[in-house]
Structures are given as C-alpha cells and as structure tokens.
C-alpha cells in the first residue's frame, strides 16, 4: 500500500492538462517505475498523483508527415526496441532502451518517464541527445516542440510548465538526424542487467559516400555531467576528418575537454573520465562499421 494522498486518473491528454492545472502540486505518473519507487522510499510519500497510464493515444511509434520518427511518450522500452521503424532507422535507440533495468521494467517503463525525470543516467537520454531529438510538449495553449538539449534544465528538472498544465506527449527524431546515420551505445554498468549506468555513451556517424570521411559525428554522454550532454569539442575535431583509427583515438581523448563527471560513491571522476574516453572510441569504431566504413 502506497502512502499516496490522492490519485487522479486522466482519461485523455486534455484531461491530463486539466488535472495538472487543477492539482499543480500533484506528480505525474506514467509507467510507475520511478515515481512509485520514490514514493516507497519516502521521498514522494504523502503526495498526490496524476496517472496518465491509461492514455493509449500516447503510445506507439510512427513516421509523421514531416518524416519525423514520432515516439509517443508512453511507449514502453520493450515496444521501442521491437518496433520496425526504430529497428530500421535508429536501431541504437532500441538497443539503448533494451539495457534499462530488466525485462519487466522495460515493459512498464516509458520513454517519456525516462526523460521527464531529468536523470542523467537514463539509458534513452544520451542517444536522444546524440540524435538531436525534439520533445513535444502539450499544454493548455497547445503544442510546442523544443530540442531535447533545452528540455533538460538541471538535474531532476525539465522544461515542463506546471502553470501551463504541460505534459510531454512525444519524442521526435527529425529525418535530417536519422538519414544515413548509424550509431552505437555503450552502457557502462557494474553488472550486465538490472543496473543503472555508471556512464552512458552514445555515438552516431554519417560517413561520406565513399566511406572515407566523417561527414557528421555526434556523441552524447549520460552521467558525464548533471544532465545528459553532447561532447562538442570532440565532435568539432572529428567532423570532416578522415576515417582512421588515429583520428578516432584523438576523438576519444578530446571528450575530456567536454565532460564534467563528478566524484560520488558510485564512481570517481577519474574512473568515469577514463571510461568515457574508451567508450567514445569503441562506440565510434562500431558506428563506422555499421555505416559501412573501413578501418
């Protein structure tokens, strides 16, 4: 039995917005795998909840008229991984969310929840950053879209305006982002399942037609800073460069100019930094292979 003050169950997106305006102090709950854990721990004990669990209109993956890949915020990790659109265009996202917790958590957890909790270790977050996803937010005044980078304000806080009754309704990957692009994700954790990332590294690459030049490389980390982050210096270094192991080595070292992991009991800054360099290299090598490049 949860120590819950009240439960408001939304029946539609509009209803969810109305409930949010009516109960601004209430916490939104989607899959429950974070919120209920915190309620059990006592952190959110005694709070009211607005459940959006039943809003099936927010589930599923489609390609919209602008050729964006549109992932409804309530789509579970399992459904993302098994979705044919994801598998065809952005398989790395399916692979990344397939490393969240264990199978039952992946059946329950949603990509919306994974991003709205504002946690740097979220397995989807680094890949969404690396693919420059857009976040669709719906409120009383309609829909707005913002880059995922702007969605994260600080650790644990995202750009959802309670006074606007806003909820996140979808994540979009623009065509320009996924076209001819291949990526790889390394979840570095202490065990091979049921774990949170010590460091998450997501890299994707688009190579020139002859496969010899890095046309566009993007890299993002989780747990390398308070929120998921891109490594822009490393990207600036590698873009336009020849596809060589030496360049990839340098790319790896460059990420140290970008990241800012902290010392905590979960891992030291030095350790996370070391793993970031190694993971960046390995992810890029893997991305090159997937993109048909040779090393």
């Amino acid at each position, binding site marked *: *039995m*949860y*120590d*819950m*003050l*009240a*439960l408001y*169950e939304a029946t539609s997106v509009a209803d969810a917005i109305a409930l949010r305006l009516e109960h601004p102090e209430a916490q939104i*709950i989607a*899959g*429950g*795998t974070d919120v*209920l*854990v915190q309620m*059990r*721990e006592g952190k959110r004990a005694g709070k009211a909840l607005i*459940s959006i*669990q*039943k809003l099936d209109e927010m589930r599923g993956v489609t390609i919209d008229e602008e050729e964006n890949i549109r992932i409804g915020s309530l789509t579970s990790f*399992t459904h993302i991984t098994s979705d044919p659109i994801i598998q065809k265009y952005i398989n790395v996202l399916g692979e990344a969310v397939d490393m969240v*917790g*264990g*199978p*039952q*958590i992946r*059946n*329950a957890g949603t990509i919306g929840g994974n991003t709205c909790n504002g946690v740097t270790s979220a397995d989807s977050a680094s890949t969404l950053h690396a693919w420059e996803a857009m976040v669709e937010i719906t409120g009383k005044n309609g829909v707005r879209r913002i880059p995922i980078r702007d969605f994260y304000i600080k650790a644990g806080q995202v750009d959802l305006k309670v006074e606007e009754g806003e909820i996140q309704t979808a994540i979009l990957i623009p065509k320009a982002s996924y076209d001819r692009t291949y990526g790889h994700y390394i979840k570095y954790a202490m065990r*091979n*399942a*049921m774990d949170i990332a010590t460091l998450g590294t997501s890299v994707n690459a688009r190579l020139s037609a002859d496969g010899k030049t890095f046309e566009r490389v993007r890299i993002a980390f989780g747990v390398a800073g308070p929120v998921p982050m891109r490594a822009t210096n490393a990207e600036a270094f590698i873009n336009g460069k020849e596809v060589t192991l030496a360049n990839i080595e340098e790319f790896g070292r460059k990420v140290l100019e970008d990241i800012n992991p902290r010392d905590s009991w979960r891992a030291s800054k030095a350790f996370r930094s070391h793993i970031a360099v190694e993971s960046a290299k390995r992810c890029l090598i893997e991305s090159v292979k997937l993109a048909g490049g040779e090393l």
Partner: protein
Amino acid sequence: MAKNQYKLVTCTINGREVEKMVDVRASLTDMLRNDFSLTSVKKGCEVGECGACNVLIDGECFNSCLYLAVWAEGKNITTLEGLTGPNGELSDIQQAFIDETAIQCGFCTPGFIMTAVEILNRGVEYSDDELRKLLSGHLCRCTGYENIFKAVKKTMLRRLGKLDDPYLNT
C-alpha cells in the same frame, strides 16, 4: 486529512472476470495477495528490483509491486495460480522447474515461471545469451540461475520439437 479513495476495478484474473473495490493506494501486488489470496505473488523488495511479484498483464510481464491496482481495469492478468489446471495439472514449464531442480527456497520461483511463460509463448528459439537477457529481471539467491536457465531452455526446445536429447546438459 483526505478520506480514503476507492475505485471499482473490473478485470480478468486467471481467466475469470472479477470486480473489486480497491483502495487507490494499493499496488497490484496488494490487490492480488490481499483481495484474491493469490499468494504466489511474492514481495521481495517492492521497488521492482527482484522480480518476485512478477505477473502477466495482457501477455507481458510486470512487477506488480510497481503497478497500481486501479490500472488493472480492463486488463487480463495471469498469476502462477493460473497456470495450474483444474485438477492440479502442471504446465510444462512448472514441471520442468521441478524436474531440473530449478526450485530451492521457492520464493523467486513464481516470478521466474511467469517470465518464462511470456518467453515461451512467443514460440521463438532464443540463443543462450538472449535467453539469459530475457530472464535477467529476476534475482535468485539459491540456484545461481543455472537450473532455472536449464528448465526454460529445455522447455523452449521441447515446445519447438527440438529437444532430441532428453539429458541435454547446457
């Protein structure tokens, strides 16, 4: 102080449509154990880390501790009790858990078997690595997972007609 809040939930549990007035604060674990006496649903952590409370909801596995009872509305739920036939007949996976010595203290067993059911119902032949990943949402302290893995793998192969060697040693 807010008055307690209740909701009528209608759902199917182990093939039978049921109705129950539940406290909105209840987890599905609470409802299944307390209102329906389905005590195969075990509590090992109540925060989704151990898998002991795992049940099937519309064919997919969920840790019922992290699932509100009111969300069960309209759902089809199966617990381990639902696998046993009317005269106590065991399903193949239950029998395999017994035959392969995959059971010790028995506390993780119900959750593991329900995940095995989800896996086996797909009718797919998984590699050993895939199978391990599919079973990875459960913790067990007695068996080292060895015989659990064996029981699930053998049942998978048996269902696919590929278990030639009855003494298959994985």
